[in-house]
């Protein structure tokens, strides 16, 4: 019944991954706050160490099975049957890697841009890293919920303390949105707990069958939590504010990892726990995804703020992700997972880039720019890579993800496929227009004489460039992690066998 294989590494790698950043944070506590260099070096050291450790996951992951790997399990609160239960499968493993990589880049990008409360900033960053890894590793629903919520606090501080002028509004909005969603999820978790006979074990919960009505209620309870995080239309309005006001590192973490958790939640919980409801609700989810793609894209065309534009483009791109997931076929789901990774890389890279230039000009207004390609040619070449990856040009990672998603989406519903494909036109429109206004045409006085990227900044962006082409040209390196897990997941969703009358009647109504 328990679908796990024991940790073959001989040491508890997942616990170590969660702990190292925390140890780093504790270490920083004892450094004098005037010793800024030491604080930064310790953060870098610990984030790099965590990343290097996580590479073992990449090399030692068994790609031939859908079962949970690197599993650790210890009783935690036996009275409530809450366990400290960790493990990874083909859906989650890559996001741990993404989290550890992104943290390094965030440390690097904050090297000079963060000027106040440096100590607290880096502590926050490392705590966020631990929580992110915890979210993706948890196999106990309560543990998951704790990490999920734990993530909120340092993120709230990051926006509210180190953010832009309107930071408090954005931080509160971010906090409230996600909290309201999470509370509903908590209710759902507790319902499951009692129904399944007092267990939070996700793997155990997955083996049970739940009555359709209950599935439906739980689906929407989970939806509240996950859709806000993704964010799906119409609960996306916190994202532009949060992104715009957050410091660069905050935006990068938000874009690269935090909003992936929503989509991850759908994959980890909604689909396998509530297969009948997922199937029945798929048309609605597809419709919302299509709206997000088009709505998020068109709204980008009217943005005047650099970060706001990229934030709205995230709404559009995450629409592709949810489209793929709820296509409920192999191409769609694998494309969706890959696109989560891709979006993390591309949009993460874009926010890093925006941070780099914001540090120089202190303006986010697109109209203040122009002709940056003339003064910062290396920066311009890197940014064009990100632009075209975002537009989904073949040979970049964006293409592989979007193609598989659209193929899957089209398979699931012709309308969804065709309408979403307009996203590739709109995407080209706003991204190239953005690029033109910032990089081309006459050099604006605000950018005249800017220094091109420094070595530190180059090192920050290069991993993203490499990943963009690596995934674009050899996507199978990454897709192969997913095959068995996704297949298993889809068997669970589509092979339920008990798609009762209720499902059909709902489908009828929707049609």
């Amino acid at each position, binding site marked *: 019944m328990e679908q796990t294989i024991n940790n073959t590494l001989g040491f508890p790698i997942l616990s170590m991954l969660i702990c190292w950043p925390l140890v780093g944070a504790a270490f920083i506590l004892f450094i004098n706050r005037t010793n800024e260099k030491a604080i930064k070096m310790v953060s870098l050291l610990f984030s790099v160490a965590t990343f290097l450790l996580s590479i073992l996951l990449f090399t030692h992951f068994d790609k031939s099975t859908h079962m949970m790997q690197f599993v650790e399990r210890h009783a935690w609160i036996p009275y409530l049957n809450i366990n400290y239960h960790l493990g990874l499968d083909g859906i989650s493993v890559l996001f741990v890697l993404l989290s550890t990589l992104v943290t390094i880049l965030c440390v690097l990008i904050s090297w000079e841009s963060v000027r106040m409360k440096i100590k607290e900033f880096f502590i926050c960053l490392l705590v966020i890293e631990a929580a992110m890894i915890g979210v993706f590793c948890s196999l106990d629903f309560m543990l998951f919920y704790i990490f999920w919520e734990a993530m909120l606090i340092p993120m709230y501080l990051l926006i509210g303390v180190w953010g832009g002028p309107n930071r408090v509004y954005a931080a509160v909005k971010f906090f409230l949105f996600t909290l309201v969603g999470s509370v509903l999820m908590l209710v759902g978790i507790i319902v499951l707990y009692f129904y399944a006979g007092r267990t939070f074990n996700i793997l155990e919960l997955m083996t049970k069958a739940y009555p359709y009505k209950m599935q439906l209620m739980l689906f929407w309870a989970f939806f509240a939590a996950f859709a806000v995080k993704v964010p799906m239309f119409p609960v996306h309005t916190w994202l532009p504010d949060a992104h715009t006001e957050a410091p660069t590192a905050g935006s990068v973490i938000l874009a690269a990892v935090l909003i992936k958790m929503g989509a991850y939640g759908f994959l980890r919980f909604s689909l396998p726990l509530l297969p009948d409801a997922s199937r029945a609700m798929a048309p609605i989810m597809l419709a919302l995804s299509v709206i997000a793609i088009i709505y998020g894209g068109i709204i980008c065309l009217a943005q005047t703020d650099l970060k706001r534009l990229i934030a709205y483009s995230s709404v559009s791109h995450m629409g592709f992700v949810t489209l793929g997931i709820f296509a409920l076929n192999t191409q769609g789901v694998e494309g969706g997972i890959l696109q989560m990774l891709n979006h993390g890389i591309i949009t993460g890279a874009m926010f890093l880039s925006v941070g780099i230039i914001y540090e120089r000009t202190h303006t986010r207004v697109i109209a203040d720019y122009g002709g940056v390609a003339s003064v910062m040619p290396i920066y311009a070449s890197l940014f064009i890579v990100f632009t075209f990856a975002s537009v989904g040009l073949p040979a970049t990672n964006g293409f592989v993800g979007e193609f598989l998603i659209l193929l899957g989406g089209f398979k699931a519903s012709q309308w969804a496929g065709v309408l979403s494909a307009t996203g590739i036109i709109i995407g080209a429109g706003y991204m190239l227009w953005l690029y*033109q206004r910032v990089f*081309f045409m006459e050099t604006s006085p605000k950018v005249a004489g800017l220094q091109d990227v420094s070595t530190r900044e180059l090192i920050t962006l290069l991993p993203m460039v490499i990943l963009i082409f690596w995934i674009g040209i050899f996507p199978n390196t990454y897709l192969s992690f997913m095959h068995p897990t996704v297949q298993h997941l889809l068997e669970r969703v589509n092979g339920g066998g008990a798609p009762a009358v209720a499902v059909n009647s709902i489908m009828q109504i929707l049609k």
Partner: protein
Amino acid sequence: MMTSYALIPFLPLAAFVINILFGRKYLKENAHWVSISAVAGSWVVAMMALVDVYSGAKINYDLYTWILSGGFKVSVGFLIDQLTVVMLIVVTTCSLLIHIYSVGYMHGDPGYYRFFSYLSLFTFSMLMLVMANNFLQLYFGWEGVGLCSYFLIGYYFDKKSASDAGKKAFIVNRFGDFGFGIGIFLIFLTFGNVYYEPVFSQAGSFADTTVNFLGFDVHLMTLIALLLFCGSIGKSAQMPLHVWLPDAMEGPTPVSALIHAATMVTAGVFLVARCSPIFSLSETALMVVALTGAITSLFAATIGLVQNDLKRIIAYSTISQLGYMFLACGVGAYTAGVFHLYTHAFFKALLFLCAGSVMHAMGGELNIQKMGNLKKYMPITYMTMLIASFSIAGIPGLAGFFSKDEILWLAYSGPSSVGKFVWLIGTLVAFLTAFYSFRLIFLTFHGSFRGTHEQEHHLHESPKSMTIPLMVLCVGAVAAGWVGIPHLVGGGAHFAEFMKPVLGHPEGHGTHAEEWMVMGISVLVGLAGIGLAYFMYILRPELPARISQQFAAIHKVLSNKYYVDELYDFIIIRPTIWIAKNVLIGVTDARIIEAIVNGVPSAIAAFSSGLRKVQTGLMQHYATIMATGILLIIAMMLLR
């Protein structure tokens, strides 16, 4: 031996990587050596491939698996057959010559290395496109050439017009790719595969299948063919997506010659020819192709009549000639279409390079009204451009004559129901083509010089690195057609024979007399066009101004290109941005969603502040409320 074919695209890719990484700091003015040696290498291997294919080989192999997901598998792989080989020759030859020409043309440009790295990247993408053995790799090359086109059109990126044009080209092409992409989805869902070989061999079994597409029952092969054709319309600048190509002339002239005349824009024709097994199953699709081609070629030719921008005239001519190729494919004469693609590459690249040479001499001037009598200063440019114009006008014996004649004959005599109609349009276009081509020649090279004294002072023939490619291409513009001389005039029609295994062999049904007649008419209208141009611009140079005054309205419509750009601006661009600003941001996000989001907390706040008033802190109030409550409960219990 197999692996060496991979060198054809990968040599230019290597050149791109070297130039883009080391060009700015190290290679600088030597960047062209890397790119030129790479494309020369590709040319040599392509020639070897030609020999192999000619001796009967057919190469089809996968290099590695690109994407694998569930039942979807696609590789990077190469198919080299007759069609591929012809494209390889066209691409590598033109690319090589234009690389060499660029050494002179781009000399001293601050972005020299950048220019050559883009050219290499383009060559790589174009070669990947034509060598693909599956639809997704075709799409890869397709988007890749689009990317390079974007870079090269916007090469002078500090100019707003150039960066606008690059962006426009990419986005307009995306409209076509939208259909193309859905076509690929349908192919996969129909055949379970995106490789050419299984798809084409099974296409026949779906000849009568209809599917439900977005609620309509449509003939499957027609649907797939037309969706693929959407891509062609974009890439080959056919109506209604032709608007990007004239603007693309913002790029450096060698780019116009290579990308926007000889190679990339013909990719659409290549796509139709490659998918001929699918198109041939649908009469409707073929008719759409033929009519789109015919109408576009007429439409573009009429605009070409009145333009004064040297490069834009040639650009409209390109659109028109591409229309000709589609016209051919649409009447089932794929061979003739590809034959015209092949001859056109030479004379049109030559026309553009000559135009570049003229610009070089005129200090960037493009208005032909300000030129004149250049033949005195630039004899080589003049002679080569004159020959290219004779070729495009269809003067017997030259390359353009044979391909154009074959198209017209097969349109006239073929089985297509619109054949006679498109033949008529084709003949009319042949007249217009000859006229505007020679209008350009006469205004540029003959008469008296109308530019400034300073310009006149600087007039000179271009350096050898530029004139030698002109002369080589000129040989092509004359002789490229000799491989396809029809049986009628004693030739062997070798080209059609060679292509037969891939594209089939459409036979015209008509008598020799008819064939002579069609040929005669096309020659006559060509000569008439030249004659009329001679009359209007040499004998009676005051006439054009009078005519344009007399027909001011028509002239205005033509010189404004039928206002298509304005129309798109009005019906697509403005409404979209208006909706984004005023509906999505202004209403949906700000008034509806945000109102709900901000409304819930404020409603709660209002509710709780109302509730707060109950807590007055006065004992009497609490006692009253308690008493009321108790009474109520007792009352309820009693009433039950």
